[in-house]
């Protein structure tokens, strides 16, 4: 920031200051697209390693999943459905803010966060019932917990991003003229949903 003038901060002439210039559009959206691409490539590498190790073990006529492990479908299916619903919610928020419908935008953003919390809750339950001991010789526990845990981190990051944009929307910073922040948060949310679709198929469906 520029050096302070002799006028103390308590007397800052806010009323006389010119209005802020309009920000260049689409910058945040493109940046978020690149960040999403980086995250997706990270999971591509992890899932690639998982599939390779699985193919190697199965090719040697071995058993991939450890004994006594439990890979149910109920919890992952509920997580997938919740994430798909949350994608609809966050896109509803973008549509609402684009039409200057602020109450609907706040409701949609809030519901998105609720769905995110529900997914985190179900993930915790899933980890409790997996019955996979990380101290075994098998690579399955390490890979499964790494991939699933990394997705939870990405989900938490998406929730923080969405929460921050909801806070800015509450402050009146987004309108039909400029709503890049909400669109960017929606894009990152969709990216983490797509990541979970890959995880759901690669780990919980193929087993």
């Amino acid at each position: 920031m520029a050096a302070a003038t002799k006028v103390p901060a308590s007397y800052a002439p806010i009323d006389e200051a010119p209005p802020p210039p309009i920000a260049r559009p689409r910058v945040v959206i493109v940046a978020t697209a690149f960040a999403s691409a980086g995250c997706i490539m990270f999971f591509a590498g992890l899932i690639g390693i998982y599939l390779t190790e699985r193919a190697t073990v199965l090719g040697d006529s071995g058993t991939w999943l450890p004994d006594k492990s439990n890979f149910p479908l109920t919890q992952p299916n509920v997580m997938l459905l919740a994430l798909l619903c949350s994608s609809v919610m966050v896109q509803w928020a973008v549509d609402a803010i684009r039409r200057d419908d602020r109450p609907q935008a706040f409701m949609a953003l809030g519901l998105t966060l609720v769905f995110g919390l529900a997914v985190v809750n179900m993930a915790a339950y899933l980890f409790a019932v997996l019955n996979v001991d990380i101290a075994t010789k098998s690579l399955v526990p390490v890979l499964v917990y790494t991939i699933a845990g990394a997705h939870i981190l990405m989900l938490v990051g998406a929730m923080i991003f969405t929460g921050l944009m909801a806070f800015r929307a509450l402050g009146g910073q987004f309108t039909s003229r400029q709503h890049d922040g909400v669109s960017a948060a929606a894009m990152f949310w969709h990216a983490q949903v797509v990541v979970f679709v890959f995880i759901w198929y690669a780990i919980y469906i193929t087993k």
Partner: protein
Amino acid sequence: MLRSRMFTPGFKLYFGVFAFLLAGAMAVGISSEIQHFKTVREALDYQGVIYTFTGPISLGWKGAVGNHIGYTVMLVGAIVAAFLAFVLIAFRDADPEAAAQVVQLDSVPLTKAPAGANYLPILSAFALALIGIGWISSKPMFYAGIALLVSLMATWTVRAWAERATGDDEVNFQIYHRIIDPVRIPVLAVLLIGFVVFGLSRLILAAPNKNTSSIIFGTAAILFFAGVMIVYLFPHFSRSLTIAFVTIGALAILGLGIWGLAHGERSPEEHGGTTSGEVTPTEGGLAPITVGVSH
């Protein structure tokens, strides 16, 4: 002269990356599958032409894919490149006419230059490193890193908002300090006092005896008073002197405090022995209990 084009340069770049990675994924999937055979003809004769190609094309559903890691990474890379190409052309990135049309202006708005130096990114990186190290070694360090990261994020948010509050950079600066100083100054003061007290206490406790501890304490007090007096007596150089004294003092306390921690505290001094007839209290101040064995 910049003018709008149907296919933007960004789209062309990432579409090329998409095509390259897609071809690469097919090549990796097919070549790694047939590498077990001596020749390509032998592989095609053994498993058929259609089977050899349907594996990579159907994402491994109707055939085999040799190297899973290479195929997966390149295929997902191709998908991601296609996504980026779509985003860049859908949102008309680097197209000034489209950007101006979105915000309903005659020309594209100028980007805002950074207003002054910002140390928050590097401090945030330090907080992340603290979290990572604390996760492995020390719980207090882990929680300290999280607290530092949360406070830095809040400060950065306020600063980013204040930089765009009005069109005057000086007014924005004053707004930022009006909001952040009532919180930042007391918190930093408490942390600084805690740092000085903890560092000096480690040094004093590591001294070999009580007299040395008194000398250290007195010397620190005299140096602090002398520094304050010098800053007061030379007001023209007060800012530079303050920065110099604070930096030297912080480094000295840090270095000596680390030395004191590594050296360890001295053993407690004796406070005189007990006389006959007095009962020596046990731990917790309770009277000693003797248990006898009956025969």
